[in-house]
């Protein structure tokens, strides 16, 4: 069976790749495009470590096939910083010590950024429920939630 030839956009760059039908977007990102920032924690959509934005929508890349992204817009953790400047949420995670081992961090950052773009003034409960699909085993979520809330406040101040 011939592979699919897919043309898409990843972090603003035009990208093309070949993939089998059963390869997920996560497989393609990590193994073909060598963008290993998105992580595989479960391959079943239960941990969020593979979170990316697809056409501006927060999704698990392990639940999207590579061949589904033809002509679409994919944004991964690798595109979050603006050149040499970290996104305020990335900086906030560092300052709050909102990561310990760091494996879940890319997923949380992509998800957190998506939240703040949709809801610039979330309550703590809203933050926790939005991020319920991102598992963390190290931090107990406390400092992650603080980092997101403080970033929201800082961004609102402008």
């Amino acid at each position, binding site marked *: *069976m011939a592979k699919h030839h897919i043309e898409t956009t990843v972090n603003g760059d035009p990208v093309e790749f070949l993939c089998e039908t059963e390869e997920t977007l996560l497989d393609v990102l990590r193994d073909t495009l060598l963008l290993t920032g998105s992580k595989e924690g479960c391959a079943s*959509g239960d941990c*969020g470590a593979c979170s990316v934005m697809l056409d501006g929508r927060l999704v*698990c890349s392990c639940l999207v096939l590579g061949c*589904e992204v033809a002509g679409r817009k994919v944004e991964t953790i690798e595109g979050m910083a603006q050149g040499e400047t970290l996104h305020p949420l990335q900086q906030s995670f560092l300052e709050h010590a909102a990561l310990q081992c760091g494996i879940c961090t890319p997923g949380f950052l992509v*998800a957190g950024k998506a939240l703040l773009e949709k809801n610039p003034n979330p309550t703590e409960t809203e933050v926790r*429920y939005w991020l319920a699909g991102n598992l963390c085993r190290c931090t107990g979520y406390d400092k992650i939630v603080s980092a997101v809330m403080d970033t929201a406040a800082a961004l609102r101040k402008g």
Partner: protein
Amino acid sequence: MRYEAPESVEGAVALLAGANGEARVLAGGTDLLVQMRADVVDPDLIVDIKKIPETRAISEEKGGWRIGAAVTGAELKEHARLRKAWPGVVEAANLIGSTQVQGRATMGGNLCNGSPAADSVPALIAAGAVATLAGPKGKRDLPVEDVMLGPRKLALQKGEFVASFLLPPRPPRASDAYLRFIPRTEMDIAVVGAGVSLTLDGGGTITAARVSLGAVAPRVLLVPEAAQAIIGSRLDEAAQRRLEAAARAACRPIDDKRGTTEFRIDVAAVLARRTALIALDRARAS
């Protein structure tokens, strides 16, 4: 494994009907991809229906709402008027999985995955939703409660797929709600799900109702006895007890890693009552 993304209903039907070996419809993929990875299913053909416009549209039709089978939970949530008319349906679809999953999961996929614990199905059934199937013989309508016959068993013929749902017109003073029981606060499959839709008259008495229970039987149940228990009442204490009893009586749940039989029956009664009360509050406010 072939992947096709037809741009018309006819195209999809032709692919599905003509498939040698196993063919699967792909909408959100939040069940299919997981099952493929777990080697539970190994399709020869995947038919992605998301390029077919009518599977992705939300529009008003004959006073009701036509919702494409491949509209995502997140998109449903962002549709303010649909959310206002059918808060139960929208909240049910948005309880599936996580924010990420809701960005992809669809009610069509949720129904056709054939799990009696599906979150959106009790809400759709309570709403009186009708599924429009497209197949080689053309289109036909089925009430949603008649689509899932048992675990992984659907009433679809070869070549058929669910293209859209039609929610009926909403009279005034009517609303719906969906609750589920899960051990955590998110991310679990429903141990019990309850959908209630009801209509009130000017005096606040329930004139119409539909009650649906999920995860307590081999298929999602429409429970007419539960509706009867509250029609004609204002959901007073006595009506609530009748509702609970009817819910209990309808359950035929299993013992599994998510809950015991006894637990599911107990909680079905509690949820039926709590869901009905929320629907009542919403109906009063609408």
